[in-house]
């Protein structure tokens, strides 16, 4: 396992990957996973998020949950940058299958094809899914 040491932190820095494959609101996984991501920011690790399959719906613009009386947590994805969580990846094939484009998304992401995402995910040390 690759372990590096940086200047400010004397523990190992690992590549943490959070895989988001589930739509928001239908289940709580998206919301609770985001809570883990926010906490991970405090540990100075190399954090990446990928949005694949229905996970891409988590970052669709203009979510309005008033009619279902649930908390709209989509703005929190915009706040990730302030936590230095800046590596967000989306699979192009997942967007295409759902009729979505980059313009539908509420945060800046890097869009990769399946092959590119596969390479990126394979290079991680710790993969957290939910």
């Amino acid at each position, binding site marked *: 396992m690759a372990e590096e040491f940086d200047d400010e932190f004397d523990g190992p820095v690992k590549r943490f990957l959070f895989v988001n494959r589930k739509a928001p609101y239908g*289940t*709580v996984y998206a919301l609770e996973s985001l809570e883990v991501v926010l906490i991970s920011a405090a540990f100075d690790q190399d954090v990446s998020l990928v949005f694949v399959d229905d996970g891409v719906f988590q970052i669709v613009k203009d979510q309005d949950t008033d009619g*279902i*009386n649930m*908390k709209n947590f989509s703005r929190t994805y915009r706040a990730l940058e302030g936590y230095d969580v800046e590596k967000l990846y989306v699979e192009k094939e997942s967007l295409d299958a759902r009729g979505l484009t980059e313009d539908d998304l509420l945060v800046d992401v890097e869009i990769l094809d399946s092959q590119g995402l596969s390479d990126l995910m394979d290079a991680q040390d710790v993969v957290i899914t939910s």
Partner: protein
Amino acid sequence: MKLGILINEGPFTHQASDSAYQFATAALKKGHEIIRVFFYHDGVYNSTKFADPPSDDRNLVQQWSKMAEEHGVELIVCVAAAMRRGINDDALAPGFQISGLGQLIEAGIEADRLVTFGD
């Protein structure tokens, strides 16, 4: 119309209890009668008074309790499903009662429609 409602999932992981609550609210508003809400499978977790969600989120347990109080809606928690999941009388929020699965079948017999919400 007399409605029976079956809820198969708990108050957070799935939207089932939320959808059921919105449906029930709309039904009451339109003047229908809800003869029973039956909580089965993980649905029994909707009944615990110890649930303490963040203040900026909805509290489904309290919402159901309030509906029971204001509209006399019967909230029945399956005893077998509850026991194995650690829900007993000491945990019950106001308006919830623990009873047997027969109450679900009875609701199916007595209601004009039984509507199920789950995973």
